[in-house]
């Protein structure tokens, strides 16, 4: 089974690395991820361009917010989700 690579960066601050997961995987995953973590900050790392548009839409529809989308390399982004 394919597993998600995730770490705790700090207090209520997590990073889930979905680089290597093509679209639409990040969009499908974020709903469950946002539901699962209680509160704080979740950095979702993605490398498919569409995720930078799709993921924020799903997050907003769930009543949470995307505060930053940072390009961290060629074809790689960090989406900062706050709950």
């Amino acid at each position, binding site marked *: 089974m394919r597993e998600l690579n*995730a770490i705790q960066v700090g207090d209520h601050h997590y*990073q889930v690395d979905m680089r290597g997961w093509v679209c*639409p995987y990040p969009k499908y*995953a974020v709903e*469950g991820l946002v539901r*699962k973590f209680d509160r704080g900050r979740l950095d979702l790392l993605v490398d498919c361009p569409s995720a930078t548009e799709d993921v924020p839409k799903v997050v907003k529809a769930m009543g949470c917010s995307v505060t930053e989308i*940072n390009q*961290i390399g060629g074809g790689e982004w960090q989406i900062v989700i706050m709950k």
Partner: protein
Amino acid sequence: MNQVPFRKRAWPLWVGAIALAAANVGMFAFMRAIGVFPQMSMWGAQVYNLLGVKVDAPFTIYPLTPLLLDVHSMINFGIVLGVAAAALLSEEFKLRKEHWTGYVAALAGGALMGFGTVIMPPCNVGGFYSATMALSLSGPLTVLGLLPGAYLGGLLMKWQTQRAVAALDFNAMPKGEPVRARSSSAQPLIGAAVSAVLLAAAGYYASAGLTKHAGLLLFGALFGVIFQRSRLCFTSAFREILISGNGTLMKWVLVSIALGTIGFALLKANGYQPMHFVLPVGVHTVVGAFIFGVGMSLAGGCGIGVLWRSAEGYTRAWVALLAGMMTAGSWVLIYGKHVGEGWLYGKPVSLAQYGGYVGGTAIVFLFLAAFYGFILFVEARKRERA
């Protein structure tokens, strides 16, 4: 939010939809409409012949031809170069490796698309988008297969994602250092170089008297840029209607088809290539479209989608592309005849048979309105449940 420079900003969907329709009408007026898989199935047949297995290309109008001399393949090469240039200029290129399960999915998805393209025929963009514009009865019918097929493929992907998310435990995560942003890349420079190669290749063909080759190469690149910048993904358009209850992409695709249909009908009504992209129609249309639909979801893109992602550096798309062309390229060995011949295929039917080009266009618009209405219904149901 950080200010994003223009070259990195995605184009609005409406811009992509209008540009795509204009490009398709323009390329039809120049020579032919968009469609990429029949050429790739010819590439597959070429590989078999190189390996010593004698097999004819599955589509008779795309005969075995050296790739760099094949006028239709220019569209594919143009798409690859156009996408690569656009992705590099916007710093979205990356050599993306996959988990082994992704390569298995790509292999299966590519093979299904390969079979789908010769049974339907041809691919999602050619068989649905261009064929509907061209007033082929087969075009609207492909939806009956592509929609459930893409849904099934999407369900598999969603199930895989949900399992991975379920296995995460936020209370027992290892501690680690966050990923840091890397400094600026050389991608825009390489993108400029790819653009120069594209223009030089088009210039070379034109100077050799092969103006159709040069033209289709440039049109292909235009399509590549439009797809890459507007992210108008047809696979996503079909898949997300039923998976997410979101039909935004498909609604813009339908608007694009409506605009293009007017252009195609005007050209055809004036006697220009009246049977262009009018394709065989029958049960095979729906069956082939279903197989293709499942395949494109698993592969992560339809024919154009895998060309596009290949040029963005997705190795999963490379596998799908190879699997698709090798499967479709073997069709004459498997079936014994070409696409469109024999018991499997019906006859091509033009909607212009029903009330001329005005009547045919009206039928296409009725279909588009019905499909649009269906999407609105699905979206309303989704909102009710939320």
